[in-house]
């Protein structure tokens, strides 16, 4: 037809739109309802995207999530209808709890069949409503490009989060002209929030007067790329910084002002500092129960400033004195500016002398520690050696449980986006696929998954993925034959009744690695740890390092659930 634009299929519109969004990598898994998309991907777009075929849709979403955490750009995933969609739920919930921008496209049965219990039909929009920031069912091809634009906008702006777009097969097969919209039809969605300046000024006044201040920084600092501002503020005010699990890397772990992580398995000095502070500046953090312990006894002597992009996070768990709704970068920059204009910061070092002395005392009183005299491998020692040997330069992902906490305690993160871990949802099986996502984004960097023998088995099938795409992901298994964190709670709080946490029946991880075509290494004694890590890291391609560790080692310090953070069990 002369004078009219070329008609292309919905599948092509989808992929052209992804190009417009500058998507480079797509993680996913094909199926009946997405045949048209996958066909177009191979026929017309094979040069445009790096497609990574996971071996399970959950892993595909975690990989997209790991890609997003490592790069700051949205992770993209395409899966089929029904079970393809339902398998993404854990991945979406993981990304939702940790505010990670992920866009998941699911196939759907053709629109005339929706609601008829068709083959591989699931109401995925209904199912994922509470675990996505927003989701869509695209029922007309005319809405397709605009919806994709909205999905990316919503996923990446404000408090980021996952968005799901459900694509019926007939919409993918229909044809229409393609024009990627430049403007959005989201009149009620606010992407920019200007902080309330009087609140910023009030925060500055409190900071200038504080004698025992602490900055409590969370994942929001990383998603807002506010780590430079955070460092400037902390150094300018000589203010110590403690980080949440999600915040690790937003402030250098090796910095003299770093207190390490706070909360349930935080450092003694971080928890003591918060408990005794007179001013707490929370940035991009949400007073999670794993951080605060017993709320009534959390930082009782402190005025609290809470800077967060999400108004619902403020005054949710704890009543704060100065609420500031702002993007962490913008909010901190303005706070710094006000403080500079007041000309006071220079005096901070002197004013806080006693405070710093107290922090040093807490530090030397109770350091993170473990018994170094044993022949049996201590899991902490493995992480510590890993830190030394990699000089802190690896991207570390973790599974969930003891392995995660030891990684957080003994690997110091100096840069943001180098620690990938499921904090909010606590998803076992997250770390390995997340490492795949990070390795796809950074083929030349060292990416290591610190795992337990329990959680690695939750997505172990991804060994095939790392082999297929020649991804040199390294997996360090801290193998204690237990679901260790649950066992630790059973030991502490359930009279040593180890109900169903013994998993000595596990595969031989070395042989398993070899069965997939990867390298497997094992260490049984403390003396073997260093050579095993070195050999593993020097080996090309994917490697599983299986460290047989002390079976009943616990993670300490520990604040028992529901107790005040002052009541730490130290060893």
């Amino acid at each position, binding site marked *: 037809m002369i004078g009219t634009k070329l008609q292309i299929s919905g599948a092509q519109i989808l992929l052209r739109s992804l190009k417009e969004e500058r998507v480079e990598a797509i993680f996913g898994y094909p199926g009946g309802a997405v045949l048209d998309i996958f066909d177009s991907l191979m026929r017309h777009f094979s040069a445009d995207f790096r497609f990574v075929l996971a071996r399970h849709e959950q892993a595909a979403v975690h990989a997209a999530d790991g890609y997003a955490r490592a790069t700051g750009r949205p992770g993209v995933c395409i899966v089929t209808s029904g079970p393809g969609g339902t398998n993404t739920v854990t991945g979406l919930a993981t990304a939702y709890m940790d505010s990670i921008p992920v866009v998941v496209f699911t196939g759907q049965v053709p629109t005339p069949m929706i609601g008829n219990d068709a083959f591989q039909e699931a109401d995925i929009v209904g199912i994922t*409503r509470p675990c996505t920031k927003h989701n869509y069912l695209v029922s007309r091809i005319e809405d397709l490009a605009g919806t994709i634009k909205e999905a990316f906008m*919503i996923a990446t702006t404000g408090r980021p989060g996952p968005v799901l777009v459900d694509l019926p097969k007939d919409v993918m097969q229909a044809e229409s002209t393609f024009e990627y919209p430049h403007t959005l039809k989201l009149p009620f969605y606010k992407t920019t929030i200007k902080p309330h300046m009087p609140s910023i000024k009030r925060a500055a006044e409190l900071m200038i007067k504080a004698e025992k201040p602490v900055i409590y920084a969370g994942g929001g600092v990383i998603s807002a790329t506010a780590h430079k501002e955070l460092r400037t503020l902390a150094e300018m005010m000589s203010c110590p910084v403690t980080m949440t699990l999600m915040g690790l890397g937003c402030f250098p772990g090796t910095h003299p002002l770093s207190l390490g992580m706070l909360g349930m398995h935080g450092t003694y000095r971080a928890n003591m500092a918060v408990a005794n502070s007179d001013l707490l500046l929370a940035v991009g953090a949400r007073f999670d129960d794993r951080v605060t312990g017993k709320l009534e006894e959390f930082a009782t002597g402190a005025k609290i400033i809470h800077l967060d992009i999400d108004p619902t996070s403020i005054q949710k768990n704890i009543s704060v004195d100065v609420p500031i709704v702002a993007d962490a970068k913008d909010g901190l920059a303005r706070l710094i500016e006000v403080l500079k204009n007041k000309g006071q910061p220079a005096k901070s070092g002197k004013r806080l002398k006693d405070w710093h002395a107290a922090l040093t005392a807490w530090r030397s009183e109770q350091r993170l520690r473990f018994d170094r005299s044993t022949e049996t491998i201590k899991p902490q020692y493995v992480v510590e050696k890993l830190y030394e040997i990699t000089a802190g330069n690896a991207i570390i992902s973790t599974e969930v449980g003891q392995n995660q906490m030891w990684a957080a305690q003994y690997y110091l993160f100096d840069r943001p986006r180098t620690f990938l871990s499921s904090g909010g949802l606590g998803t076992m099986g997250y770390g390995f696929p997340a490492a795949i996502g990070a390795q796809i984004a950074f083929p030349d960097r060292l990416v290591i998954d610190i795992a337990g023998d329990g959680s690695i088995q939750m997505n172990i099938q991804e060994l095939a993925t790392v082999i297929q795409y020649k991804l040199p992901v390294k997996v360090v298994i801290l193998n204690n034959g237990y679901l260790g964190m649950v066992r630790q709670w059973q030991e502490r709080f359930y009279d040593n009744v180890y109900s169903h946490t013994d998993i000595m029946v596990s595969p031989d991880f070395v042989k398993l690695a070899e069965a997939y075509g990867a390298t497997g290494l094992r260490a049984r004694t403390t003396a073997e740890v260093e050579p095993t890590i070195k050999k593993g890291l020097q080996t090309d391609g994917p490697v599983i390092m299986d460290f047989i560790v002390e079976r009943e080692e616990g993670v300490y310090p520990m604040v028992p659930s529901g107790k005040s953070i002052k009541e730490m069990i130290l060893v």
Partner: protein
Amino acid sequence: MEDRRVISVLVENKPGVLARISGMFSGRGFNIHSLAVAPTLDPQYSRMTIVTAGNEQIIEQIIKQLRKLINVVKVQDLTRGDYVDREMILIRVKAAATDRSQALSAANIFRGKVVDVAHDSVTVEVTGAQNKIDAFLQILSPMGIIELIRTGMVAIPRGKKEPKPKGKS
């Protein structure tokens, strides 16, 4: 302190929006006393009147969580200002031909309308603020309520009593 609150929510009139709102309430453990919804003059939007209860902190969370939903246009806590609220009730009470007059006079006092009469019952429609509806129910209950249906509250802020100095209203 548990306070009853009336929240007016303007939303985009799209499929699934009601589920997003009610799902947010149930998922976060908030309580919905009643919810009434219908399109506005502009059919692109719907307005909901939600009656809920909770302390100050919970109400603040409810309002913020509503505002966070992508399809929500505007959220107003009507309880913060002056507003007019109404609810309609349809109620069928036992009333044989011989003692119908009692039901009719009650309806009359409450400015209700008889909308259906059967050989052993009458159905009455009453509109009013919730305390009036409750009072009406109390009066009728000794007669024997067979069935009743309430719409839930709808509410609108009162207009300004004094003219604005200038500008748009």
